[in-house]
């Protein structure tokens, strides 16, 4: 792997320079909270401890995506393909969990046949990761075997070490970028790699009792009819926060907007809504909130892995922190390990 360094002062200048040739999106503060936004002023980038409220999946799997346009001429329907913004995008400030979450989404959208909309956006986007400055109260990335400084999945990855960032150059595209913008970077400083390792160690030491994954997948099947899910659902509001803010949730619904002329839209959907599984016959296999809530946890902790061989949860903690009634997947994992049995 190749390494560079960039000073704290030069980082905004580098981002400004990128804006000349790319769309650039990064976390910024809006009314006190953090969101990914297309960046107009690189000095606005938020580099603090809080993760973005809405995950960066919006750039690959947008909440609302026109799939095609249609128009009726008498008896004939004309169909046009929807256009995507062809400008290349750079995402700056992706956390290690954001990077990991793309593995889960890739498994869904890039499996053969690949989803052309998602694939085009992935292809057209450079990923600039950043190590976390702190461990948040809902964080449990370590459960999934990576850390707040893991660079896997990024093209370039930045880790703040004192007054400069260590830049890991992880892909040919990342390499081209540091070559094209070489004036902002310097060669690796002696001791930077060791400094990153000690930063990682100090962050890892901050995790207090993260949940263990051992046994969760094995025990879940035995708990399908456990009263636990109903008790948990007593508290659940049945809103869509946990799924919409989940960086790996990817369910959608399809709408046609306009009768004679309009667009076919792909919109985010959530398994917590009762019409999600409603059949045309009127039958609903997940009619109760407890069945829907159970499905969400089975999907995050078991089904996604069974289907794709990739974890369906990355431990980002958004669902933990933003659930208005504190339904905590970490607690669910602990309960599954405590209550369940392996095999039948």
């Amino acid at each position, binding site marked *: 792997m190749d390494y560079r360094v960039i000073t704290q002062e030069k980082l905004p200048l580098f981002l400004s320079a990128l804006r000349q040739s790319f769309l650039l999106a990064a976390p910024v503060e809006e009314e006190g909270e953090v969101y990914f936004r297309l960046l107009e002023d690189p000095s606005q980038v938020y580099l603090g401890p809080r993760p973005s409220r809405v995950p960066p999946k919006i750039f690959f799997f947008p909440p609302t995506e026109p799939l095609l346009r249609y128009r009726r001429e008498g008896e004939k329907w004309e169909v046009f393909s929807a256009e995507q913004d062809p400008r290349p995008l750079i995402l700056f400030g992706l956390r290690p969990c954001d990077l990991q979450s793309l593995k889960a989404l890739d498994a869904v959208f890039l499996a053969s046949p690949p989803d052309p909309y998602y694939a085009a956006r992935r292809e057209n986007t450079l990923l600039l990761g950043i190590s976390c400055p702190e461990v948040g109260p809902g964080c449990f990335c370590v459960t999934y075997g990576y850390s707040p400084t893991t660079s896997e999945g990024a093209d370039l990855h930045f880790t703040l070490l004192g007054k400069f960032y260590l830049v890991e150059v992880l892909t040919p595209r990342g390499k081209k970028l540091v070559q094209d913008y070489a004036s902002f970077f310097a060669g690796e400083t002696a001791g930077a790699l060791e400094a990153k390792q000690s930063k990682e160690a100090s962050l890892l030491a901050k995790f207090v009792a993260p949940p263990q994954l051992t046994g969760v997948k094995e025990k879940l099947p035995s708990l399908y009819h456990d009263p636990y899910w109903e008790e948990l659902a007593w508290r659940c509001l049945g809103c869509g*926060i946990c799924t919409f803010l989940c960086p790996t949730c990817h369910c959608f619904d399809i709408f046609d907007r*306009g009768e004679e002329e309009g667009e076919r839209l792909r919109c985010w*959907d959530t398994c917590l809504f009762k019409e999600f599984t409603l059949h045309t016959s009127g039958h609903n296999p997940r009619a109760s909130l407890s069945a829907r809530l159970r499905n969400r946890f089975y999907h995050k902790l078991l089904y996604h892995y069974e289907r794709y061989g990739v974890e369906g949860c990355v431990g980002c903690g958004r669902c933990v*922190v933003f659930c208005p009634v504190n339904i905590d997947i970490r607690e669910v994992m602990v309960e599954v390990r405590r209550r369940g049995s392996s095999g039948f």
Partner: protein
Amino acid sequence: MRGLTEALRELAYRLLREGEVELFLGYSWGTLPLVVRPCFATRPEQVEAFIFNPLCLPNLVKYLLRFEGRRVAVVVKKCELPSFRQLLADRNLERKKIRLVVAPCGGLLDPAKLQKEFSGQPLEFIADRGKEYVVRVGEEEKVLAKQLYLYPRCFSCPQKDEDLEPEDIRLEFSTSLPSLEVDPYAGVSYLEERPAEERREFWDRVFKRCIRCYACREVCPACSCHECCFDPPLPGWQRTVDWMSKAHWLPEIYQYHLTRALHVAGRCGECGECERVCPVKIPLMLLVKKLAKEIQSLPGVEPGILASYSPDDPEPH
């Protein structure tokens, strides 16, 4: 304030043990610092989880709908009584099966403001001194001025708990919140005076963030319809063109929020839960307050009166 928690646990224990209620609805600590969550006990041995302190933000009354017909005790703060009464009226709940446990509240504290100060350390509440709370953080005792940390809705605390039934229970504990003399419509008035273009920019910006999660509706005690007009009768892909998609587009988002605001106008108890649960911090109470202000400007009309309800109504639904 441990005494208050102890009294609450004793009460819950007694009510459950003697079979006076089947379920006791209260609060317990959550899994995150400064986070309190709803807690349900059906057996006496479960009451040890209950707490009451100024971080008990959630309004629990809407949970009553899930246990309709069962004998339930529910912890409420004074500010939640209007939403309780409205729910009772809207859904014709059997009042005699519900025991209200009115917790003495000297004002809630805003976890976001505390988080900045104490960054994740647990707090233990010691005493309520009217203008301030005494808390223990680690080994240290600290004084928190309510003026600085108060939860927004507490600035317009109703400070009264009338219309209780004899079976309801007032927990005795010394708490007080001095009158704060805050104009409840200050935010609305400020916005009203902005030019139209600026108001439009403001609402466009905050509504653009909406993720259509419907948490505001799910938590709202005034949103108690059996079926909601925003719940599609079938998933979108099974239908043809429909009046409302799940798109995160401003027309849909405005339609949802404005319809909901108008639907609950006159019935909203202003508990502020919609704003608390919003994951993208849309200032929904501004809509609610605007409508309340409009209603109040009518001669002889008070917010809430548009949905006045008589128990003798021959057609209660």
